[in-house]
């Protein structure tokens, strides 16, 4: 499980706002990426970026999670400061996975239920509207990395711009807005998604796609994967997909009781 031979290179993983924006187990994505990078034989440095801190010089892979409204308001000022850097990295092909709240902030705008428009970073061509009903439940997607399973929990309804590719097509669950069967967004190596779960541990193909791009950026060489036994992840994923599919391909009944 531990890398035995000399490191194939050093990959810097930046976790954006681990205190404010890391709810519903999103920290698990960082744990998963770091562990897999090491198991592939690379050295991994995890850099926690907090509001007000200088953004690291090297950043090969970025992770951001969901938060509560109070958490989002705490990171807005910092995002304005590092926004240009993030846009530059994204255009340059840096892999990023942004979940829920950070996905929304990577879009053009968030329009509150009162109609106030809060601008986002504009890295993904998506617009989100606040609404009173939450979209909650198990979710299954078809993506270019195969079937992906997770748990969505969001009240914002997101609409993709005309040329924006989704992260996946919804097979079970709500997705971006409960209407058009899209889930998340993807531009270059930036993935935005509502999937908690956390999404990466049970869907290692997505994790390795991000790591592949990160390794190439960090080392200038093609990714050299190490042997990883993913049988636990495969069992967890396929069993959960089978359960969710058996419950029906339509939208899952909302779990909120109130």
């Amino acid at each position: 499980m531990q890398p035995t031979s000399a490191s194939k290179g050093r990959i810097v993983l930046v976790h954006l706002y681990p205190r404010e924006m890391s709810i519903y187990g999103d920290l698990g994505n960082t744990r998963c990426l770091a562990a897999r990078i090491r198991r592939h034989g690379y050295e991994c440095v995890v850099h926690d970026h907090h509001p007000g801190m200088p953004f690291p010089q090297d950043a090969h892979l970025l992770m951001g999670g969901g938060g509560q409204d109070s958490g989002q308001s705490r990171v807005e000022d910092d995002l304005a400061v590092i926004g240009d850097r993030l846009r530059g990295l994204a255009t340059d092909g840096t892999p990023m996975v942004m979940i829920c709240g950070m996905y929304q902030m990577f879009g053009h705008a968030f329009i509150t239920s009162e109609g106030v428009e809060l601008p986002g970073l504009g890295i993904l061509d998506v617009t989100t509207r606040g609404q009173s009903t939450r979209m909650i439940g198990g979710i299954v997607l078809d993506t270019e990395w195969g079937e992906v399973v997770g748990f969505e929990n969001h009240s914002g309804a997101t609409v993709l711009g005309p040329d924006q590719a989704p992260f996946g097509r919804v097979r079970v669950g709500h997705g971006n807005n409960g209407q058009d069967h899209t889930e998340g967004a993807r531009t270059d190596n930036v993935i935005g998604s509502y999937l908690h779960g956390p999404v990466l541990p049970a869907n290692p193909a997505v994790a390795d796609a991000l790591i592949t791009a990160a390794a190439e950026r960090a080392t200038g060489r093609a990714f050299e994967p190490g042997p990883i036994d993913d049988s636990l992840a495969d069992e967890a994923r396929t069993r959960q997909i089978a359960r969710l599919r058996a419950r029906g391909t339509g939208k899952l009944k909302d779990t909120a009781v109130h």
Partner: protein
Amino acid sequence: MLRTSAAIAAGKALRYAARLRGGGSALPGLVAERVDPQLLARTLAGVPGGIVVVSGTNGKTTTTKMLAAIITAHGKRVFTNPTGSNFTRGVLSAMLGEIGLRGRLTADVAVLELDEWHALQFAKLVTPTHALLLNVARDQLDRFAEIDTTAKLLATLAGQTSRVVVLNRDDSFVFRIAETLQGKEIRYFGIDPEVADQVPALHEADVRFEDDSAPPAPTPADGLLHPVDAHDFTIRFGAVDQVGPLSLRQRGLAAMVNATAATTMARAVLGDAFRADATERALRAVTAPFGRGEVIDIDGHPLELVLVKNPAGFTVALGTYGSEPVATMIAINDDYADGQDVSWLYDVSFASLREHGVAMTSGVRAYDMALRLDYDEVLVEQIEPDLAGALDAFLTAYRGQPTRIFCTYTAMMALRKLLAARFGLAGFAQEGE
């Protein structure tokens, strides 16, 4: 009064029927509630010594049990909902067992455990005289959605309480509620600030933010916990009064904090009648409630059942039990009562299990649990989603050794049933919601 009698009769008949079937405790209350929604209000209005509501994310059941025991030890008759069915209906169900058809409850004090949301529903019908607010942590997130929302629910409950609100001075979500309160007596419980730095944190730092707010300096009405060692502790009120030193039957710092909360509230409820010796006697004798470190005798060897339901609770449980490693099984289900989103397992560190590994993971999400442990480099010997198969294999492999099972709510209910059948434990499967 005719309507009340009909409601009580209907509820009582169902309660009896449910008992015969070995069914749950909330259904009879539901029927009575349909017949007469004011029944709860009218009946509890006659309780002279106070209506105490205990709420918060973790430790409600333990604290309620301790508080009821302390007040009982002072010679008072206490009405409580001891089954852990912390819904308004559960309170009604418990009440139906204790009242005559006239709807009179022969109790001096009511001590009721209610979750954050149901506490508010309850307060719409009945004004609590006292509220004890324990903590706010992430739990059942698919229900309350945001921890800030949960904190607001508790603040509203405190606002609706008529006399005394007791707050946790170590939880910023809870002590900040004081800012919103007017015209009520506020007391606090917590770990003595003088020793707080030697005590491990009981909640997650990542959902709390550093800010300028701090609880006020303790007064003699506030209960401060002084842990002596892993077992003994003292609760101090000002410079003179104290309860203890004593030790509980239930292990761990969390239980000591619960005892401090219960004792602080008992002093508020009992006033001059409060006695330290009676309190110590009650606390020493109180047993762990359903699923909070219960110990079952399996052929002369202890099997501990530990209920886990949220990151803070699981982290505390691992801290409490991890220091004495035994063969460990973890059973995770994802029904509504367990929390349908198993993401929370990634907000718990399982590093304390690394040295000895985990013998078995089970439940509907057995593979997700094993995967989680794999990412913390914890070795898992066996994975068996079926609870019956897993329990048998686990107990067979570790026969004659102490064992421990961490489990979510519905997994625990299923395991209790299995254990009751295997080892002839009468009534063991009946307890609980």
